[in-house]
C-alpha cells in the first residue's frame, strides 16, 4: 500500500511538473509573440496579412508544443515534435513563397529575397526532425529492452 502511494505521488508530481513546464513554455512563446507583433506592427500596413500569418503560425506551433509536452514520457512526444518541425518547414516554405517575398502596393513592387534565411531554417528543422526520429527510436528501443529484462 505504501509503495502504491509513493508511486501515485510520483506520478502526480510528474504530471504537475509537466503541466507547469508546458504552461511556462507556452507563456514564453506568447510573450515572444506579443513582443514580435509589437516590433512588426509598423510594417503591417506595408505587408497586409503579416499579423494573420504570424498568428496562425503561433497557434499551430503552440498547440503542437502543448500536445508534445503533455505526452512527454511516451513515444507521441517525439512524434509531435517531428510534426512540429514538419509544420514549421511547410508553413515557412508556403508563407514565404519559397523564399522570394514579392509584394506590390500601388505602383511600387517590393521583392525581399529570404532564401538564405529559409535554407538555414530548413537545415535547423531537418536537424530537429532527425533529433525527434532518433529520440523516438531510442525511446522504443529502451522500452523493448525493459520488456525483455522483465
Amino acid at each position: 500500500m505504501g509503495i502504491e502511494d509513493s508511486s501515485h505521488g510520483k506520478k502526480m508530481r510528474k504530471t504537475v511538473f509537466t503541466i507547469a513546464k508546458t504552461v511556462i513554455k507556452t507563456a514564453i512563446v506568447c510573450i515572444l509573440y506579443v513582443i514580435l507583433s509589437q516590433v512588426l506592427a509598423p510594417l503591417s500596413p506595408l505587408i497586409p496579412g503579416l499579423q494573420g500569418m504570424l498568428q496562425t503560425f503561433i497557434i499551430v506551433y503552440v498547440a503542437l508544443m502543448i500536445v508534445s509536452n503533455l505526452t512527454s514520457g511516451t513515444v507521441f512526444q517525439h512524434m509531435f515534435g517531428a510534426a512540429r518541425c514538419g509544420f514549421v518547414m511547410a508553413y515557412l516554405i508556403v508563407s514565404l513563397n519559397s523564399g522570394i517575398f514579392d509584394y506590390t502596393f500601388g505602383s511600387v513592387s517590393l521583392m525581399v529575397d529570404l532564401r538564405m534565411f529559409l535554407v538555414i531554417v530548413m537545415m535547423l528543422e531537418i536537424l530537429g526532425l532527425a533529433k525527434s526520429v532518433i529520440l523516438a527510436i531510442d525511446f522504443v528501443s529502451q522500452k523493448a529492452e525493459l520488456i525483455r529484462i522483465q
Partner: protein
Amino acid sequence: MRVPIRIIGIATSAIWAFLIIFMVTAIYSMKDVRLNIGQFQNSMTQDNQLLLSFPISIVNTGFYNLAQFNISTLVLSANGSMLANGSTFIPIVVHERTVNVTHDITLNLTDLLLANRDMLFDDTELSTNMTVSMRAAEAIPILASSNISIPWGAPLYNLRIGNPEYSIYNATHSRVLVPLSFENHAFFSLTGNVQLHVYNSANAQVTQTTMDFNVLEYSPYQGNVELYIPFGTTSRVHFEMFFAFPFLNYGPLVVPYGN
C-alpha cells in the same frame, strides 16, 4: 546518446534565437531607412547630351549597414524603346549615417528627337522605371521598383508663323517681318537659330535670313524674323524654316503663304 542530442537541441535553440532576433531587427530597421529624391537639375554635356542630375540622400538610422545600394533608372518612350538609363552604386551605407549622392541620367536628345520628331512640337509622357536594390543588414537582398510617368515638354510647342507685315525698305526691296512664336515647354533652355528661306511660285529662292534665339525653360517666345525681299516677287510664296540647335538640326518646315 542523450547528451549529444541535448547539446544539439541547445545549439539549435541558440541558432533559432539568433536567427529570429537578427531577422526581426533587420526587417524592423528597414523602416528607419529613408530615400529622399530632390529636384533634378539639368545641364548639357560637351557631346550635347542632356544630363539630368537628381540629388539623392539615403538616411540610414536603422541598426545595420546597407550594402550594395544601387539605384537605376530607365527612361522609355511611348512605344517602349529605351531613351536613357542611369545607375548609381554605393558600396555601403553605414548605420546612423546619411549618404548624399547625385544620380545622373544622360539623355541623348539627338537620338531622342530624331526618332520621335513629334516630341519637338507635342507634349507627352515618358515612362520611367526606377529600381532600388540593396542588401539589408548586408545579408538580405531587397529590391523595390516603381514605374512613374514624367512629363515631357515640347521645346517648340505651339509653333506659329503669323501673317507677314510688308513695308517699303528702299527703292529695290521691301522689308518683311514674319512673326514667329512658340512655347518652350522643355525643362532645358533652348539655344539655337532659325533660318528662313523664302521661295517664289517658281520655286526659286528669293531670300533667306537667320535669327538667333535663346529661350529659357518653360518660357514662351515671340519674335519677328526680318527679311528683305526684292520688288516684283509674286505674292504667292512659301517659307522653309530650318531650326539649328546644338543637339539637332531640324528642317525644312514648309509654310505656304499668299494667294
